[in-house]
């Protein structure tokens, strides 16, 4: 290697130009694009929500403070809080509230527990994984009206399969069959069954997706330490999928308290909206429908739906709080 070496030929590289200042309007657009465009993109949801969600809610609030009877156009004017006062003394409302909570507990608790078990099973190595996963989602895809009508037949008094199954195990007498619609407890169980059937698979898949993100070595370590599958589920899986747990609890609280289709279609005469001969299973949503469209008292119905809204807020809040605590209160 000679020391004397020609300097490498200087290539005629054009001097890197200083970043050209784009024309002013382009700069403006660039800034606008990065800063504002995201808002434009998400705005359709909010615009639509404002038109179809927010406005009805606010309007509903206004209606709740008014008298508005469809069968008596003269009764139209400000009522103040009279509708809400009436609500407090309305035994139908409290009965419906009790029914709603009863069915809500009978459906949500087993629903989420079973979903957890199902997800845990699906999380193992199985043959035909996709088959099973799609399978548990099928009830969710079924239109609720269709499945509920089938269940209404299933739980019918004279020719129902539920009574037949019970008679097989000796719990029921076919000559004196159980009238599922006659009592609170039996009608609640029937409706909760419909809700559970529909939502278990859906929740199970949510749990499953969360479980898949848990590193396998955590389980291996636990197994080495001697934790059995049951312990692993409660000590590792449940805390680690906690955000999804909170999500499902909140969602099923909202859904459970708004329960409408199942109780409506369980009725022999779906248009009556009384929830059984003695309102055994009339839910609040059903009562709102009845007050609004059967009794034609829109103001009172609006007040009821606002009350339901507040109750849902409270219950969902409490549930989220409790679920958080369940996982150790880290969030």
């Amino acid at each position, binding site marked *: 290697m000679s020391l004397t070496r020609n300097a490498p030929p200087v290539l005629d590289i054009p001097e890197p130009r200083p970043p050209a200042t784009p024309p002013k309007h382009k700069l403006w*657009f660039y800034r606008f694009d*990065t800063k504002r465009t995201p808002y434009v993109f998400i705005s359709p949801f909010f615009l639509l929500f404002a038109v179809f969600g927010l406005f009805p809610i606010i309007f509903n609030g206004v209606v709740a403070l008014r008298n508005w009877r469809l069968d008596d156009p003269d009764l139209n004017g400000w009522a103040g809080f009279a509708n809400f006062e009436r609500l407090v003394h309305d035994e139908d409302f409290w009965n419906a509230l009790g029914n709603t909570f009863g069915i809500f507990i009978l459906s949500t608790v087993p629903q989420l527990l079973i979903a957890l078990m199902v997800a845990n099973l699906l999380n193992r190595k199985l043959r035909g994984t996709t088959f099973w996963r799609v399978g548990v989602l099928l009830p969710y895809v079924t239109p609720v009206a269709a499945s509920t009508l089938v269940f209404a037949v299933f739980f019918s008094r004279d020719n129902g399969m539920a009574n037949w199954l019970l008679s097989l195990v000796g719990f029921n007498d076919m000559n004196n069959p159980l009238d599922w619609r*006659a009592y609170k407890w039996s009608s609640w169980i029937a409706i909760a069954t419909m809700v559970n059937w529909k939502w278990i698979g859906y929740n199970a898949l949510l749990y499953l997706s969360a479980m898949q993100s848990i590193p396998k070595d955590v389980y291996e370590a636990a197994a080495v330490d001697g934790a059995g599958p049951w312990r692993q589920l409660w000590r590792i899986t449940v805390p680690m999928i906690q955000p999804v747990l909170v999500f499902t609890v909140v969602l099923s609280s909202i859904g459970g308290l708004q329960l409408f289709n199942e109780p409506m279609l369980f009725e022999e005469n779906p248009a009556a909206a009384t929830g059984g001969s003695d309102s055994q299973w009339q839910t609040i949503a059903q009562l709102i429908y009845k007050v609004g469209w059967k009794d034609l008292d829109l103001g009172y119905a609006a007040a009821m739906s606002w009350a339901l809204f507040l109750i849902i807020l409270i219950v969902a809040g409490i549930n989220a709080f409790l679920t958080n605590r369940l996982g150790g209160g880290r969030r």
Partner: protein
Amino acid sequence: MTRFGRRGWALVAAGLAGALTISGCSGQSLEGGNDKAADGQITLKVNFWGDMGLDKLKAAYEKDHPNVKIVLNSGEYNAQHEDLQKKLVAGSGAPDISAVDEGFIVQFRGQSDKFVNLLDKGAGSYESKYLPWKWQQSMSKDGQQIGLGTDVGGLAMCYRTDLFKAAGLPTDRTEVSKLWTTWDDFINVGKQYVSKTKKKFVDSGTNMFNPVLAQQPQGFYNEQEQLQMDGGPKVAFDVSMNAIKAGLSANLASFQPNWDQGFKKDQFAVLACPAWMLGHIQDTAPEQKGKWDIATIPGGGGNWGGSWWTIPKQGKNVDEAYKFVEWMIQPQQQIEVFKTVGNLPSQPALYKDPAVLDYKKEFMSNAPTGQIFASTAENLKPQYLGKKNGPTRVAVENVITRVQQGSLSPDKAWPEAVKQAEKAAGS
């Protein structure tokens, strides 16, 4: 980037426009259905429930009026009325022609400003043709006529001849009629039937309550809209309790799937039959042709049900709608409906028409339905039905159902029925 931004805007705009068109259009094009097309074609939407025998009429009318297309929309009884109420309030979407039943006519005649006053269209000339009370029932307080009557109920008792024979009871309709002149007789016959066959006699306690109530001079409400439970309702309630206590009731809710099953499985042998019920029996259990017959009902006449054709004001083709309604209530069409589904016309002149009088219903063992129902309808003294008649009836029916379900004892049922009726009256 800039292009992206522009595209973003375009997307947003397109999306919004799309959303608005979807929401904007649906109210009109899907529900109104009465827009005049360019070629002068007119679509009339007719809402009703059950089977009002319109299929043949529609075809005949369309043939004579090539520019008119009629869309028949049969729905559930309560749902149709509630839907009409909603559309009236909303101000759009109501059908061009809507049937309204006796149970709802009071509610709607109170809103006569939302219906076409048929007197303006010249319906006044039909007043003399109608049963006077039928004409009055659809008349608003300020003298507007919102509906033209289609049919009236009338009452009779349908029974299954084959089941009666098996129970050792007579099957001939005059002999059966003689078995029960009072409701007590009826319950005694029922007891005989039940002890012989070990089957139930009537479909439900509520279908005992309703016809008996219809026979009373006064229903739930007096003309001052006050609830009167101690009159007619008490009489009817007691009859239904006696029937339930005697074990006659199969406890099947009317017009529901289990009830329809009950027809097919011979779960009951008699059924209170207003004229319009014949169509339902025929549609539900066609294989029972010739096994049914019609006897008189205990306790004399009474009316249960019957409808009107109304024309909501918001329709775009009210003139064409009126023409069709006017055509439907002409004797020839009324007789056609009577023959197809059994609905009894509400124009008394037709009761003397040989086409009605000599008509024998083949399905009902050739019973002379024209004679049977015409004679009850002519002697009717109609009840005043209050504004809250519908909900009150549901409330009392629910109490009867609770007794049948065994969750309420028959002795405690009456106070409970009064309580529930008062609640419904105040709702």
